[in-house]
């Protein structure tokens, strides 16, 4: 294909463009003293829509709540419906779900690491990691037929199985990914560019993490040893051993290292599942209409605790379905990491990295941000691109 330039005009910044910015920062010079957030760019009305679809029809919808965390949401959902029936699913299906889930986690964490490289201007890291990411995408496609949205799990079990050929490819893939991740484990924490932007940046103390209900790697990088897979085991996690990774630096560096180490843990978990895969069916059929009941399901998505609530009313459609994705939980603590307090200063230049620190699952992260400087009587709006350019110059 010949190279032809394709321009995508996005229009000039216009004060008349009355779109609400997601973030508003009150600043004094370079220092941020207060941070506020509005969500809503991505609001679709999914929960209401779910009430008009059957439990099975809702599976592809739930899978698309988050493009990256798709497997976590789907497992959380199908599990929730299974809790309504109060029937255990085949053990093999539980192991298969763990394989899918951990592949999803490896994908998510590697994608994130590449994004971090991009955010700090370390383009080589971004390119390398996203090349390695193709390995896990290929494995996901081999297992499920799709590179991203797996469509793998269903109510009562999984839809597809692992054949010996798939298992062989998966083991080879795990070897490659382990070698690459160990390489990043060595090189990334030694890189001066990254250290300058990561060490001591975005402090969230353990006490703040608890009070503000942080979840996932964000929480674990503030010393707290909690993970849904060990605290509230689901699927085959009661059998599959792993280490809950914590760091005590309470900063962005810690969040990065937690995710790298978790990737290595996930690789071992996939291997364990392949070694110990139980024989038997992968799915049990359940009636279309669950009993009248309520259920609460939790999984550890790559971004943290994902919790769902369901209320059934004796029909084949849910009376109420609530999804609390992990990023929602991390908004309040994120704002805290962006607020100067005590001896801890946060600067405008830190913003892109801090937002990346929670691994946000919001498609609205590329919008504008608003700044207010009361002492100077100034207020201005930047696009994320402008902000990133500014941060890289600092």
């Amino acid at each position: 294909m010949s190279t032809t330039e394709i321009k995508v005009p996005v229009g000039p910044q216009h004060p008349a463009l009355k779109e609400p910015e997601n973030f508003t920062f009150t600043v004094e010079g370079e220092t941020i003293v207060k941070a506020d957030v509005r969500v809503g760019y991505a609001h679709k009305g999914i929960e209401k829509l779910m009430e008009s679809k059957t439990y099975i029809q809702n599976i592809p919808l739930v899978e698309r709540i988050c493009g990256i965390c798709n497997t976590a949401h789907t497992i959380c959902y199908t599990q929730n419906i299974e809790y309504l029936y109060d029937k255990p699913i085949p053990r093999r299906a539980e192991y298969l779900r763990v394989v899918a889930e951990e592949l999803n986690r490896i994908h998510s964490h590697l994608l994130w690491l590449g994004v971090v490289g991009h955010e700090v201007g370390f383009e080589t890291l971004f390119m390398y990691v996203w090349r390695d990411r193709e390995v896990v995408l290929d494995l996901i496609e081999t297992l499920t037929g799709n590179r991203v949205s797996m469509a793998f799990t269903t109510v009562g079990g999984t839809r597809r199985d692992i054949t010996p050929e798939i298992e062989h490819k998966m083991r080879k893939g795990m070897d490659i990914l382990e070698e690459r991740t160990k390489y990043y484990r060595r090189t990334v924490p030694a890189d001066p560019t990254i250290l300058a932007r990561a060490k001591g940046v975005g402090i969230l103390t353990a006490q703040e993490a608890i009070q503000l209900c942080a979840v996932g790697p964000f929480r674990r990088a503030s010393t707290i040893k909690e993970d849904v897979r060990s605290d509230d085991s689901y699927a085959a996690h009661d059998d599959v051993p792993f280490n809950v990774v914590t760091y005590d630096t309470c900063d962005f560096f810690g969040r990065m290292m937690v995710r790298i180490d978790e990737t290595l843990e996930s690789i071992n978990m996939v291997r364990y599942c392949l070694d110990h895969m139980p024989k038997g069916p992968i799915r049990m059929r359940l009636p279309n209409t669950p009993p009248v009941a309520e259920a609460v399901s939790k999984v550890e998505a790559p971004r943290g605790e994902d919790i769902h609530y369901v209320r059934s009313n004796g029909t084949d459609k849910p009376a109420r379905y609530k999804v609390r994705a992990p990023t929602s939980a991390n908004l309040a603590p994120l704002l805290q990491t962006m607020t100067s307090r005590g001896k801890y200063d946060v600067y405008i230049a830190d913003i892109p990295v801090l937002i990346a620190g929670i691994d946000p699952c919001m498609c609205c992260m590329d919008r504008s941000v608003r700044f207010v400087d009361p002492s100077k009587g100034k207020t201005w709006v930047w696009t994320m691109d402008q902000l990133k350019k500014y941060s890289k110059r600092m």
Partner: protein
Amino acid sequence: MSTKPEEFITNEMKAFLGENLIEVRIPRSRRIYLTVKIDDYKRAAKHLVESTGLTHISTITAADAGKDVDVMTLLFGRGVEVMLKAAVPKTAPKIPTLTDLVPGVTFYEREVHDLFGVVFEGHPNLDRFMLPEDWPEGVYPLRKEYKVARLKGPREVD
């Protein structure tokens, strides 16, 4: 003395609330459902968070229950997820905020306010959080009575 955590928490709340505990259910391991009146909601939550070890609030959500809206707070601790439920009448949908107890719930309460119209008394800022700016006031999309109109684009052909 090794009591299972579900038993420990249930006994703790039975002792604390006495007859005011309307209902207790343990549907499966690591899940407890508690139902209380609005008047006991705040102190029950406080007791769970400060004295029973359930320091993490996973979320606060709601469901339409006909004349009422059920407000459900999900707390986690001791390896157990506890759902604390209180019904608020649609005619006067008010319940105390928990933001002074656990600041991290601020956005959860705002979401329930947007979607169900429940007012969390004492919340510092119940401004619109996720609905579009021009969404009509008083229309709470997740209440059953509202069949929300489908969006029609300007170029849409019928």
